């Protein structure tokens, strides 16, 4: 029961009193008017009935008095009514006061209960993983958020109070792709009063796009508006997993499609699938092409064995098809029989499928059959080529072998095996180290260098006294070094011959020079006058003997130099020399010889310079040029020695006044054993090696040699030597 308040009671009192007063006033007036009218009517009748005034008709003043009485009566009535009304109201007010204090207590209790309920609700909503919310349709048909629990802060990134208000403020953050569905379902829910359930992407201010799931129950109010009570939760994690699952599923689909495509597209390779019972369940297009059977003719009708001719030839220790474990494969070579009875050599791989996901459920074995007829003929060709190669190399007097990148023999010929004393087959797959031990250690560095891309040659004695000249060539396949070719010649004989030759040259030179030393020494002493005077005629003879002794000595020297020159062993040891000192020495050393030719040696004072030369070799060159000049000069002539600066060198010249070098002979001046005219009257030309050796020496010292000759007007030989700063 609703309890009126004291204020309302008071208000009723005032209003009631006024109404009462008004009512009495109005009634009194009405009554007075009607009484007036009645009195007037009776008064008029009275006057009419008793004309002339004999009849006692009431006086007007009486009516006035009557009216006052009436008014007093009304007033009294009104006061009584007012008193009654107020009294009643007072009773009501008292009762109200009493009731209202009891009601206050009731209200407080109710408030507390309500608060507890609210608290419980809040606890509940706070701990619900999501946002508990209420949406209410407003009179203007707009939908407002009228409640949102504390979970809003986590799920939507906004405090609950910020979400209150038009729903549109929230839907503006929904991903544009998901919004139409969300709105359509909300509308549907409103119309059908069905549960509103939707998942959509929502722009979370901190986490970016999150997936939210909303589930709300609508309720229609009496006024026709609708409210929803529901829950919104973050389902991003679940969505991610769903997406992953979807992508994996998609990959599986793609893989399956690829496998199918592969099976159908492999050309020259037939693929078929059989089940555990040996029934063909799948026969690829390539299989159709290879075997001439259509898939329809084969599937369910033909067994794998029917496709092969005769027995299989297993490759190595491969298990039988029936014994295969899941995931295991077996290989064999077989002959396929085509529909037209043509036979095809094939290499077959059968795999017991471990995972049937990508293939038919009843698949058990995958058969891959490759046409190897081309391969077989190529192999035959290769075998023949290898055979030819082996025959050719076995009959070559050269050691030939080939190594892989790990230094293991890939190939060797008979000469190689024989040289090392092994059977030809033994080497294959073995390293030299393993086979030949210490001897191979000597070869290892060169082999290593070849594996790094170097082509090199080596003369070495891997076995005592047995020499090999080895050539290592990197074996390249597509610019990658995959091994080394090894070609060697046994040069033991050559090495022995060379050693003997060397010993012989050394011995000969010593054995020739020792007596020559004695002969030339004696003749030198006698001719030099060290032993007293000699008769003139004898002097002439002795001088001839001495000159020939010297020629012989020079010949021996030239032969030795020639030997070294041929060997490429002629060496120089350049040092810093004074040009003028060296030239003066040269003049001094060759003075005696010049005198025997009756030739004067003249030196133009040389410029000051330091040169880089081997002193002994310098004098050898000078002796050569000066003796040549002296020999070819007429008696009494002059041989001029001069020097001049060039840019980075000095040029030393020896000029004579002889007959010059014949034009035809000029190109051969520096050749070995070259002589212009062996019938020259002096017959004193020496070995013909001098200029060849001189050129070699000058070039070894970093210079050049040349000449200018004018027939009949003499010759100028020159050579250059590097200048020292």
């Amino acid at each position, binding site marked *: 029961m609703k309890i009126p308040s004291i204020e309302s009671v008071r208000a009723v009192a005032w209003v009631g009193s006024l109404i009462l007063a008004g009512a009495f006033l109005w009634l009194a007036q009405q009554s007075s008017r009607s009484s007036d009218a009645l009195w007037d009517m009776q008064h008029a009748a009275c006057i009419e009935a008793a004309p002339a005034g004999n009849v006692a008709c009431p006086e007007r003043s009486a009516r006035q008095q009557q009216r006052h009485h009436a008014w007093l009566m009304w007033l009294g009535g009104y006061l009584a009514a007012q008193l009654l009304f107020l009294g009643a109201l007072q009773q009501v007010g008292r009762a109200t006061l009493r009731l209202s204090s009891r009601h206050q207590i009731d209200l407080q209790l109710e408030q507390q209960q309500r608060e507890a309920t609210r608290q419980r609700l809040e606890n509940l909503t706070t701990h619900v993983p999501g946002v508990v919310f209420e949406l209410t349709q407003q009179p203007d048909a707009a939908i407002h958020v009228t409640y949102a629990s504390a979970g809003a802060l986590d799920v939507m990134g906004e405090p609950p109070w910020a979400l209150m208000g038009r729903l549109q403020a929230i839907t503006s953050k929904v991903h544009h792709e998901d919004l139409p569905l969300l709105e359509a379902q909300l509308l549907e829910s409103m119309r059908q009063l069905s549960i509103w359930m939707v998942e959509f992407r929502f722009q979370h201010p901190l986490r970016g796009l999150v997936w939210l799931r909303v589930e709300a129950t609508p309720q229609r109010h009496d006024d026709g508006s609708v409210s929803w009570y529901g829950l919104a939760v973050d389902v991003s994690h679940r969505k991610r997993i769903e997406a992953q699952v979807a992508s994996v599923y998609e990959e599986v689909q793609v893989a399956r499609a690829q496998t199918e495509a592969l099976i159908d597209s492999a050309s020259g390779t037939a693929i078929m699938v059989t089940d555990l019972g040996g029934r063909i369940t799948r026969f690829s297009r390539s299989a159709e092409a290879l075997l001439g059977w259509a898939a329809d003719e084969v599937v369910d009708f033909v067994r794998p064995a029917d496709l092969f001719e005769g027995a299989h030839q297993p490759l190595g220790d491969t298990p039988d098809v029936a014994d295969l474990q899941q995931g295991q494969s077996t290989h064999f070579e077989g002959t396929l029989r085509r529909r037209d009875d043509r036979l095809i050599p094939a290499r077959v791989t059968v795999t017991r499928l471990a995972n049937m996901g990508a293939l038919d459920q009843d698949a058990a074995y995958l058969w891959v059959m490759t046409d190897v007829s081309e391969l077989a003929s190529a192999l035959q060709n290769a075998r023949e080529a290898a055979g030819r190669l082996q025959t050719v190399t076995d009959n070559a007097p050269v050691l030939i072998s080939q190594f892989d990148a790990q230094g293991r023999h890939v190939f060797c010929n008979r000469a190689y095996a024989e040289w090392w004393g092994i059977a030809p087959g033994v080497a294959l797959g073995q390293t030299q180290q393993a086979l030949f031990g210490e001897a191979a250690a000597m070869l290892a560095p060169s082999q290593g260098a070849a594996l790094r891309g170097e082509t090199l040659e080596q003369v070495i004695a891997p076995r005592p006294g047995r020499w090999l000249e080895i050539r290592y060539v990197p074996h390249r396949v597509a610019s990658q070094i995959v091994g080394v070719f090894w070609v060697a010649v046994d040069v033991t004989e050559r090495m022995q011959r060379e050693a003997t030759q060397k010993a012989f040259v050394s011995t000969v030179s010593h054995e020739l*020079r*020792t007596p020559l030393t004695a002969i030339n020494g004696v003749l*030198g*002493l006698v001719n030099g006058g*060290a032993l007293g005077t000699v008769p003139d005629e004898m002097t002439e003879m002795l001088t001839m003997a001495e000159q020939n002794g*010297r020629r012989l000595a020079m010949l021996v020297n030239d032969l030795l130099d020639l030997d070294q020159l041929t060997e490429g062993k002629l060496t120089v040891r350049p040092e810093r020399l004074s040009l003028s000192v060296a030239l003066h020495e040269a003049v001094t050393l060759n003075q005696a010889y010049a005198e025997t030719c009756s030739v004067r040696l003249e030196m133009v004072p040389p410029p000051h310079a330091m040169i880089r030369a081997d002193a002994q070799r310098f004098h050898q060159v000078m002796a050569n040029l000066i003796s040549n000049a002296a020999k070819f000069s007429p008696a009494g002539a002059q041989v001029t020695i001069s020097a001049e600066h060039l840019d980075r060198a000095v040029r030393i010249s020896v000029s004579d006044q002889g007959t010059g070098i014949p034009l035809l002979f000029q190109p051969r001046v520096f050749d070995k054993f070259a002589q212009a005219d062996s019938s020259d009257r002096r017959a004193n030309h020496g070995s013909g090696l001098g200029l060849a050796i001189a050129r070699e020496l000058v070039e070894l010292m970093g210079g050049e040699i040349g000449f200018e000759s004018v027939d009949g007007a003499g010759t100028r030989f020159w050579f250059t030597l590097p200048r020292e700063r």
Partner: protein
Amino acid sequence: MPDTLHHILHVEDDPAIRRIVALALGRVGGFEVRSAESGAEALHMLSQALPQLLLLDVMMPDMDGPMLLSQLRARDDTATLPVMFMTAKGSDDERAHLRQLGAVAVLEKPFDPMTLAAVVRQHWAAQT
């Protein structure tokens, strides 16, 4: 070491060359030259008196020039005795090898007896 060279000991197995060198250095060059025919004799003579220079043949029976030199280098009194080799071996390698053994010079055979003394003197001057 005195600046002027006087006393030379020549070791050579070939008697003819011994004689020629003695004349070339003695009579022509004016040195005081003594000769030994073997390494053993040279060692004996060195123990009596030390020359200023030893002129040493390379190829000799029993004890060759380099062997004799190494023995001299091991003795206190001859450790720094200047030595020149005379050799009939012509190759560059051999000459370089002899020089490395510590020879003042390597003279070649055959030689000009009339200028031998001058050559020796020249090398002597160069090393002092």
